[in-house]
């Protein structure tokens, strides 16, 4: 297998994009990544598009075929990759394999979703379509409901408190303020979302014990990367960022079938694979983008991925270890919580944010001297997870 590098990275702002179609969003992201690199005579051989539910959100299918045409990349190969909220991560993985195998030298990976074409409850229902149809969905289970039950168990087992969850929300929204691509650019306070006697009106219960500010927004947005072989990467002017390793693992579809529902086995296995392939360890990572669709997930994933011992993730948040400037900054972009979570875009956006970090292009959100980065894209409720380790080559 050949080493694979990220030559171009781009994103369009995550927000409510009433004026843009899904096609506009995907093309905008793709162009942003292509504009970030001078490919010279090299042509894009294939396009992989991470998108979860264009058929349901936008009544549109075959979106990858439409995208290559829109970007004037015909006759490049093109397909849409669907893996729930990890669709973006899966698209990146397929792009990596395509270049690593030697079959293509240049691949464009785009992730995007336009979720705000439907009202909030409908969006929640579409996302809930990934649950087990007979064992979960028919009983009204949604992703926030799953996360709520998971949070309750995690709190009981590891002593995580609502204060810890609020600390994650406050940190990530603070990071979002200086991220020009973030959906939410608003500072929140412990008083306003938790401590004040009437804070429950500002941050009402979504799925006990999760409140509004524990949940990511529903967003429209897109992100893209251009992946190239080492031979091409060496000819480019930008710092070389390698996708040093990835891992992917699955777990049971239903939560009830898991031996210990608080154990995110697929997160652990995907992370172990990614680190092993990269030849690095969690302690070598300088910056991480984790899948905080709900605040509890940032804490749980930081433990299961090996950055902290089990039960220590919340304490790390409390100590400020995960802030920009801390020992291991997590979600300096604002994460899903503030940058937003257009489901198919997220896994690609995480890679884009890491590339900017490793190139030193992350502006006010820069983690000084970042050389190695880690991302985790969480599909389903942890039943299909992708992890990536990125490395800047000096």
């Amino acid at each position: 297998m050949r080493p694979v590098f990220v030559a171009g990275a781009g994103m369009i702002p995550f927000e409510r994009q009433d004026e843009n179609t899904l096609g506009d969003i995907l093309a905008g992201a793709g162009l942003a990544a292509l504009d970030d690199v001078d490919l010279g005579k090299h042509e894009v051989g294939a396009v992989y598009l991470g998108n979860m539910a264009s058929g349901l959100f936008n009544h549109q299918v075959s979106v990858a075929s439409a995208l290559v045409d829109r970007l004037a990349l015909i006759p490049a190969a093109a397909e849409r990759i669907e893996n729930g909220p990890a669709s973006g991560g899966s698209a990146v993985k397929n792009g990596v394999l395509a270049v690593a195998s030697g079959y293509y030298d240049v691949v464009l990976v785009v992730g995007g979703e336009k979720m705000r074409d439907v009202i909030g409850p409908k969006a929640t229902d579409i996302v809930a379509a990934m649950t087990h149809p007979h064992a979960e969905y028919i009983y009204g289970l949604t992703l926030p409901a799953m996360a709520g039950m998971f949070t309750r168990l995690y709190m009981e087992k590891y002593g995580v408190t609502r204060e810890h969850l609020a600390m994650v929300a406050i940190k990530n929204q603070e990071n979002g303020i200086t991220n020009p691509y973030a959906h939410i650019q608003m500072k929140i306070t412990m008083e306003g979302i938790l401590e004040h006697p009437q804070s429950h009106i500002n941050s009402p219960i979504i799925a006990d014990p999760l409140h509004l500010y524990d949940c990511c927004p529903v967003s429209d947005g897109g992100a893209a990367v251009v992946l190239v072989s080492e031979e091409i990467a060496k000819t480019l002017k930008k710092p070389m960022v390698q996708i040093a390793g990835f891992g992917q693992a699955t777990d049971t579809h239903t939560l009830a079938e898991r031996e210990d529902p608080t154990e995110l086995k697929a997160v652990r296995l995907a992370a172990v694979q990614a680190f092993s392939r990269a030849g690095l360890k969690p302690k070598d990572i300088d910056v991480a983008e984790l899948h905080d669709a709900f605040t509890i997930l940032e804490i749980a994933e930081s433990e299961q991925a090996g950055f902290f011992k089990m039960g220590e993730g919340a304490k790390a948040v409390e100590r400020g270890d995960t802030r920009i400037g801390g020992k291991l900054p997590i979600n300096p972009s604002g994460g899903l919580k503030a940058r937003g979570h257009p489901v198919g875009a997220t896994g690609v956006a995480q890679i884009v944010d890491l590339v900017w970090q490793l190139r030193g292009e992350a502006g006010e959100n820069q983690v000084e001297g970042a050389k190695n980065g880690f991302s985790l894209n969480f599909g389903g409720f942890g039943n299909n997870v992708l992890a990536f380790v990125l490395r800047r080559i000096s």
Partner: protein
Amino acid sequence: MDLEVEAYLRPPEMDMPPYPPKVITLATGGKMVVRQATREDVPTILQAVKPTIEIERDFYDIVGVRVYAELLGWYRHRMRDMFCLIGQIDGYLVGQVNTRAYSEKLDISLHTLAIERGLRIGAHLFAAKMEYSFEYLGREEVLITAESPIGFRRWMIEYELELREGQHELGGAAPYALTRELYYKHKDRLVAGERPVPDKLMEVAEREIKVVSEQDIVEKILGAKRRIKR
């Protein structure tokens, strides 16, 4: 002005006890003072309403022109028994709500217009005007409609409003009712605020209703981002 003719044109006015001001702590930790506006405040409030009338997003244009007409009608004595509550943060106007009395038992909710978004300003102000109608004016029911899907979600769904026969006076839209019973059922979950307002906060709010620039209003409503060049 021919005062004799004017006397015929002006609608009669019902006595209304004043709305006691309150302060709401927002998710940002910021303090929003909610208080009753007077007729004399209308020209200032209209400065903030005017830029909204060309914003299509979330039906701000329709709400904006209607609010403008309602406030102007109230200011120039062509609108009967209306009240207007405003929200201010550090003196700055962040939203307004207005309602008109139909009788001593029934109010007609007119509009909620939030200039600052993402902080439940509109939801807090809407709750405040319902609080005024039920707790201070003693109404039995308030008729409500919504122009935007956001309004529908915030009022019809969150308060479980009852659909009524007939037409709302806002263009004949379907009327929904918040009854006294429904109001008290949802009060703890939706109505925020503390009284009395600390003197310092009240003094800042009453000293001046500040209005941000027209461009800022448009950007706030459209959700324009802080775009930092990297």
